[in-house]
């Protein structure tokens, strides 16, 4: 059985590498005069992927290889688009990819040997709050939100790391299936969401909040609390609409972007033009106009991908993301330790919600919030932390197997 799976994984891996070579070859041929740089990119990508795969397989026997392979496939599609958009960005991103793979293996190992499960969740809460306070104190503004800190030439988004500590905090709090002090927990969750909102990262605030709600529901089955939480978030949205100008702008751009195309509707309209241009089959790699889309390397990379790969490519990408969510849920279901099961569920929920939020935003299904598309969007924090999230999922699975073997 294991061998058969291994053969499938190897084939998938080879296919992924092949797709990379074909795509980058096309990009090479398209640049005139002929440039070999994209081919080097494909080689570098394949080298990182294969090294990461075999290294993790030998270090972590019994790991969930599908997580790694799917993530690499999405990263590859992202790298192809980034090369299209700006080769310089591509160069940086491939380094982040390498670092991400390394982080994946390390975090898998750390979680696998995580023995002391009795860390007081309060520590995780404290770390989360400190991480979120950092940008408020020392942060720089980027793309309208003050959620970045700059160290030398690198900027880093602490909220990406806070995602993990926040999930661990919740998992620790809820692992017994009941809540000691509903009000206190509510206050803690709201404090975290509030800090994100203060940094004007409303998309992030919403993701954290909904994830907390999902975990509370999963651990306690308290429909009343879940409903109250959803009602509160609806009320907060309405309140936010009336209180904050930038929320209103987002919602109005969503409801009717055509009212002010050169102004507030500009981003979403350009995104929709791109997706519309793609149609069913796409314009083909290299034949679209990603340069017309604002923030195309980060928030709107899905639109650029849709334009060149069409509806079929975009739907396939959504399905690949869905498969990742599915594998994550499956890990959560197999784990017997409730802390680890909740941690896995929390990470998957954050991950899945983030994907839904950004894809739904750029196709105008829901209002646009500036969150990144994991593994695809350009950015070191996002890339490395997405790999760490998967690493933790992988580690949780390995941890379970290790304990089974011990027991």
């Amino acid at each position, binding site marked *: 059985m294991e061998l058969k799976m291994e053969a499938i994984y190897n084939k998938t891996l080879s296919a992924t590498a092949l797709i990379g070579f074909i795509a980058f070859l096309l990009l090479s041929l398209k640049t005139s005069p002929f440039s070999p740089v994209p081919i080097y990119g494909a080689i570098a990508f394949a080298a990182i992927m294969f090294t990461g795969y075999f290294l993790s397989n030998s270090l972590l026997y019994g790991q969930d290889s599908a997580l790694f392979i799917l993530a690499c496939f999405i990263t590859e599609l992202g790298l192809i688009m980034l090369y299209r958009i700006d080769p310089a960005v591509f160069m940086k991103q491939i380094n982040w990819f390498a670092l991400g793979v390394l982080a994946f293996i390390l975090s898998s190992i750390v979680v696998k040997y995580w023995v002391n499960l009795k860390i007081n969740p309060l520590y995780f809460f404290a770390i989360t709050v400190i991480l979120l306070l950092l940008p408020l104190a020392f942060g720089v503004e980027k793309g309208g939100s003050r959620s970045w800190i700059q160290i030398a030439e690198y900027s880093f988004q602490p909220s990406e790391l806070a995602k993990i500590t926040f999930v661990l905090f919740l998992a620790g709090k809820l692992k017994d*299936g009941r809540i000691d002090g509903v009000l206190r927990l509510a206050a803690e969750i709201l404090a975290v969401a509030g800090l994100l909102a203060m940094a004007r990262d409303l998309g992030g605030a919403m993701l954290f909040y909904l994830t907390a709600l999902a975990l509370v*529901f*999963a*651990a306690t089955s308290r429909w009343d609390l879940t409903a109250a939480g959803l009602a509160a978030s609806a009320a907060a949205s309405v309140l936010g609409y009336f209180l904050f100008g930038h929320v209103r702008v987002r919602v109005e751009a969503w409801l009717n972007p055509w009212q002010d195309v050169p102004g507030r509707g500009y981003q979403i309209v350009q995104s*929709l033009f791109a997706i*519309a241009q793609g*149609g*069913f089959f796409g314009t083909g790699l290299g034949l679209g106009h990603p340069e017309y889309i604002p923030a195309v390397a980060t928030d709107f990379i899905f639109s650029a991908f849709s334009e060149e790969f069409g509806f079929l490519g975009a739907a396939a990408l959504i399905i690949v993301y869905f498969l990742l969510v599915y594998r994550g*849920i499956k890990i959560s279901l197999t784990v017997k330790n409730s802390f680890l099961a909740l941690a896995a569920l929390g990470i998957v929920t954050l991950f*899945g919600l983030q994907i839904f939020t950004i894809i739904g935003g750029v196709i105008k299904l829901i209002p646009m919030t500036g969150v990144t598309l994991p593994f695809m969007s350009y950015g070191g924090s996002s890339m490395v932390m997405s790999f760490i999230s998967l690493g933790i999922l992988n580690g949780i699975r390995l941890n379970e197997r290790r304990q089974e073997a011990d027991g």
Partner: protein
Amino acid sequence: MDRLRKNTKIIFGIFCGLFISLIVYLSYFTACEREKLIQSSYNRRLWEQEDRVTRGTIYDAKGRPLADTVIDNNVKKRIYPGGEAFGPLIGYSDRRLGRAGLEDVFNGELLGVIEKDPMILLRQKILGVSDRGNDIYLTIDSELQKTAYSMFRGRRGALVAMDPNTGAILALVSSPGYDPSNLQKKWDSLVKNPDKPLINRATQGLYPPGSAFKIVTLAAALVSHPEIEKKVYYTPGYVKINGRIIRDYEGLWPGNYDITNAFRYSSNTVFIQIGQEVGKDDLFSMAEAFGFNARVNTDIPAATSTIPRPPMLGGEVELAEDSIGQGKILTTPLQMARVASVIASGGKLVTPYILQKSVSPLGIERSVHNIEAPKQVMNKSVADEIKALMVDVVKNGTGSPAQIEGITVAGKTGSAQNPFGKTHAWFVGFAPAENPKIAVAAVVENAGGGGANAGPIVREVMLQYLNSLQDK
């Protein structure tokens, strides 16, 4: 623990729903919203497309080109063989000046970006014809258009001729026109020209209809108060309403008029009395049934012709003015051609259209007009009564300049007062009355009486069109 597993599965179910909704919405977007977005004038890709593809040709109903792309020294150039008579209708497409007219309306067709069927797109790519847009065929008869245009002799005005049974537009003239070829050089003088040749008066010009609107008043009277037909009205030559005096035109004798004579000689005072009997609500709803106050759902964008909603109380002066097509009623020549068509077609309101078909580079033909079914405005018997009165107008009354030997013409004149000088001359009619083939509405701005000034233009257009049908 089991509880946690169960809830995890519920959450997974929610994720299934969320991800499916993404794909469903994306499918909907690709299938339904896409076309509109691709053609949006905000879309910069359109100009890219424009550079890459050869814009399709616009033909008239008989296959004569009205706008064509020629390649001259590797530079694509748009030429307009129709000249001045077609300028306001066909419009232009120019990177600096933008787009107007049918070049704008059918831009997506002409660039070939409208094609939805992915298999056809793929075939076009494989066959190497994807760099050519669709050709379109209009319902316009370009000879008729030229004749109509020349009849205006440069005067300001507009004419719309259509098939009253189908709504197919046969001629749509706005005068003065312009030749869209080499537009950049002429642009400044066109913009500065006080006669505003860039405006398509036939679809965008809003004029008071004057007495031509009496068709609607008459229809309202015959539908809601059939007894009016047998009544006789007295007019001293003027009528006083709330202190406001409205007069008949000078040539009208004071005396007793039945409805035939009042319509034949276009008596304002009698029609005001009829309007009072009909009442403001019935007149208003009949006008709306004729297509006023509604956007024309057609392939050629037109301004909405309007009649103000009557006030709850009072409004006697407004009612009097509305009855004779003065006051605040505003109409496009296109709408008046529809009014004539209602009577011509036995009471049906047709939707005008101008696009006959589009032909893709692969030769696939498509009739694009998705026209609403005509609405019955009134019974055929009422329409036929009005038709008889309109025949009488041309035979014995104000419309006599539109008489054609051997053909029964039905018509109604209008001389609409306006704040800019002499009255606007209107003629609205159709022919042959027994079996109408063409309905025409023409307006000549500040020309004076409707019969004398607009009548001969309409006559010429009808005559030429009916002759061309015979030649066939």
